[in-house]
């Protein structure tokens, strides 16, 4: 159904026409089919039944002829008639065979005809035999003649039976033919009736189908579209309505394009609404701006008044500036005098620096003397150190001697000990010796002690000598330091000499500079004069400036007036915008 809906209108029309044509064709085909049937039947008749009937008639006729011939032959007794009777018999047989060989004979008839045929054959043979005998008058015996006449009588019966049967056969066939024809006639009538019915039916169907097609697929969409358009045209401007697109034929296309057109219209109206709103807003803004502008103009007026007062002040200030510049020129004259004094002082300073140089040089000379003295002191101290070292060595040697003495005392002690041992070993006899041993021990201890004393003294002397050496070393260190400081002093003195010469040079420079200062101050005085002149000019200029300010003020007033006009126009614009909005809002988007 959907596919059907979507084909074009022309095609739909063609479809309905084709339905009609199809119906006509179907009815035609139906009638043709019937005609075919009749034709076939007629064909059958022409091919089979008619020849059969004809041949059966022929068979009867020929049979009758045959019998006649036989009769003639008997009567006349001519053999040639027998031959023609045979010929007729053959023809009869032939026609009977033709009947048999036809296919359209029913079974019953076939058997009957067969029987007839057989009977006929038999009859013919016998008849041949009998009648030939009867024909020949001569040469045949009486018995044979009697036999033959009896046979002829029986044959007569057969002959009548066969004749009847052949007649009945032919009548049957003729009747059959007649029935066939009447059948055909009936069928033709029937077929005519059927075809009329079919025709009526087809016509009705075609009409209904066409009606259906046209109304459903052509008329209804069209009507719908028309109603929608009416609605849109006459209604309240509802631009949101859309036509339903049911099918894709020309009407559907028309509907879709129409929808698009309405959509576009809707968009345009929306934009218009938007723009109208914006217009309203901007007109409102414009009104605001106009008000602001008026305010600013008022501000401008006030500001220009302020500026006018300020310029008056400026004029006053410039006048005071002129006065102060005159004062400045007076002060500069004072400065010039002062710089001359500075120059004089500088000369004095350079003279004194020369004196300083001289005195520093003499200091340098004295320093050198001091240095030479310190070197002498160094040499003397080193001599003293050497002497001390010798002293120390002598003391050590004494110490060595003391060691020998100590050793001797130890040995003596040992000896004393041994002696006392021997004495005790000796017992009583050794008592005197024990006393001697005791004394020796005492001597030993005394000598030990004195050796120790000597050692101690020697140590003292040694330590004192080392102290003295240390002291002398320190002294020599100090002398070293002194000589070092002398050299550094010499260097410093030289530097100082350098510095003083630099100083004198610089003082000369300062002298020069002071002269330059004096000259520049003179120039400066000239410049100040010019300044005072120019400030007078400036005062004039400020006067003209204040006139300009007043013109600005006038201009501000005129602008205020214009701003008011602008405001009025803005309000008008606002009203117009609201009207536009009202109109546009009528559309439903």
């Amino acid at each position, binding site marked *: 159904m959907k596919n059907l809906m979507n084909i074009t209108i022309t095609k739909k029309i063609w479809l309905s026409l084709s339905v009609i044509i199809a119906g006509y064709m179907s009815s035609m085909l139906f009638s043709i089919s019937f005609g075919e049937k009749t034709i076939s039947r007629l064909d059958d008749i022409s091919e089979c039944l008619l020849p059969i009937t004809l041949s059966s008639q022929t068979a009867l006729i020929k049979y009758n002829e045959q019998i006649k011939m036989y009769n003639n032959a008997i009567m006349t007794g001519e053999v040639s008639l027998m031959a023609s009777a045979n010929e007729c018999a053959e023809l009869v047989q032939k026609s009977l065979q033709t009947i048999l060989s036809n296919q359209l004979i029913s079974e019953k008839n076939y058997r009957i005809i067969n029987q007839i045929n057989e009977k006929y054959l038999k009859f013919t043979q016998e008849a041949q035999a009998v009648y030939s005998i009867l024909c020949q008058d001569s040469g045949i015996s009486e018995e044979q003649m009697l036999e033959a006449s009896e046979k002829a009588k029986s044959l007569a019966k057969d002959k009548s039976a066969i004749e009847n049967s052949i007649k009945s056969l032919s009548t049957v066939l003729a009747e059959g033919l007649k029935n066939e024809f009447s059948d055909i006639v009936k069928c033709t009538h029937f077929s005519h009736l059927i075809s009329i019915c079919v025709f009526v039916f087809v016509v009705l169907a075609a009409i209904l189908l066409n009606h259906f097609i046209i109304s459903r697929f052509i008329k209804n969409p069209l009507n719908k579209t028309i109603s929608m358009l009416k609605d849109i045209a006459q209604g309240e401007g509802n631009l949101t309505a859309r036509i339903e697109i049911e099918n894709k034929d020309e009407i559907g296309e028309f509907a879709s394009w129409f929808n698009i057109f309405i959509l576009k219209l809707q968009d345009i109206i929306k934009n218009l609404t938007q723009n109208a709103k914006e217009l309203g807003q901007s007109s409102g803004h414009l009104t605001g701006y106009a008000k602001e502008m008026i305010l600013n103009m008022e501000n401008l007026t006030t500001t220009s008044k302020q500026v006018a007062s300020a310029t008056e002040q400026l004029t006053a200030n410039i006048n005071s500036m002129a006065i102060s510049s005159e004062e400045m020129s007076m002060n500069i004259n004072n400065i010039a005098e002062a710089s001359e004094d500075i120059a004089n002082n500088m000369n004095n300073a350079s003279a004194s620096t020369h004196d300083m140089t001289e005195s520093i040089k003499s200091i340098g000379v004295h320093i050198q003397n001091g240095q030479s003295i310190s070197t002498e002191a160094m040499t003397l101290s080193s001599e003293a150190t050497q002497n001390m070292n010798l002293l120390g060595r002598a003391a050590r040697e004494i110490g060595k001697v003391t060691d020998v003495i100590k050793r001797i005392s*130890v*040995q003596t002690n*040992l000896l004393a*000990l*041994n002696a*006392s*041992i021997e*004495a*005790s*070993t000796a*017992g009583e006899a*050794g*008592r005197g010796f*024990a006393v001697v041993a005791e004394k020796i*021990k005492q001597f030993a201890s005394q000598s030990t002690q004195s050796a120790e004393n000597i050692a101690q003294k020697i140590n003292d002397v040694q330590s004192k000598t080392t102290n003295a050496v240390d002291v002398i070393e320190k002294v020599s260190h100090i002398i070293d330091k002194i000589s070092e400081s002398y050299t550094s002093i010499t260097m410093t003195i030289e530097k100082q000499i350098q510095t003083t010469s630099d100083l004198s040079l610089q003082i000369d420079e300062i002298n020069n500079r002071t002269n330059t200062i004096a000259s520049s101050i003179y120039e400066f005085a000239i410049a100040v004069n010019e300044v005072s002149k120019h400030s007078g000019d400036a005062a004039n200029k400020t006067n003209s400036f204040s006139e300009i300010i007043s013109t600005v003020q006038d201009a501000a007033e005129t602008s205020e007036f214009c701003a008011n006009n602008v405001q009025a126009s803005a309000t008008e614009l606002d009203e117009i915008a609201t009207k536009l909005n009202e109109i546009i809002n009528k559309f439903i988007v």
Partner: protein
Amino acid sequence: MTTSEKNKNGKLNTKRQFCTFSIGRHYFGIDILDIKEIVDIIELTKIYHAPEEILGFINIRGHVHLIIDLRQLLSFEKKEIDEFSRILLFTSSVGESFGILVDTIGHMVEVEENLIEYRNHEDTKTNLSEKNFNTLEIAACKLKDKLLIILDSRQILKLLKK
């Protein structure tokens, strides 16, 4: 030399003389009758494969004497021979031709017999070194400022045999 005098109690107040020496911080003394000589010049001839206590031989005026380190016998640490080391030679009554090395020699000291306190022989100690000490040390005596330990020189050789 023992001098016999009668004291106030009527007992024999024998004085005995000891030759004193020190080893380590200990002050020892040996009966002077056992000592033949004290020698200070020490020129030892080392004996190889001998026990460590035996320091070697020394030749005194043609006589060869065996020198024993008393420090080792008393289980002190070994000390180098310095200028104060002396050799004490014993008489033949103690042992034949031997002496001991000591650290320093002190004076000859005379003490009264009754001040000497002899050791009790029931004291036994398990430590081997103490045993040495025990066998050697037989008495102790208080001097003015020191304690004098009296050794028996005859035990020295016996110790060596162990």
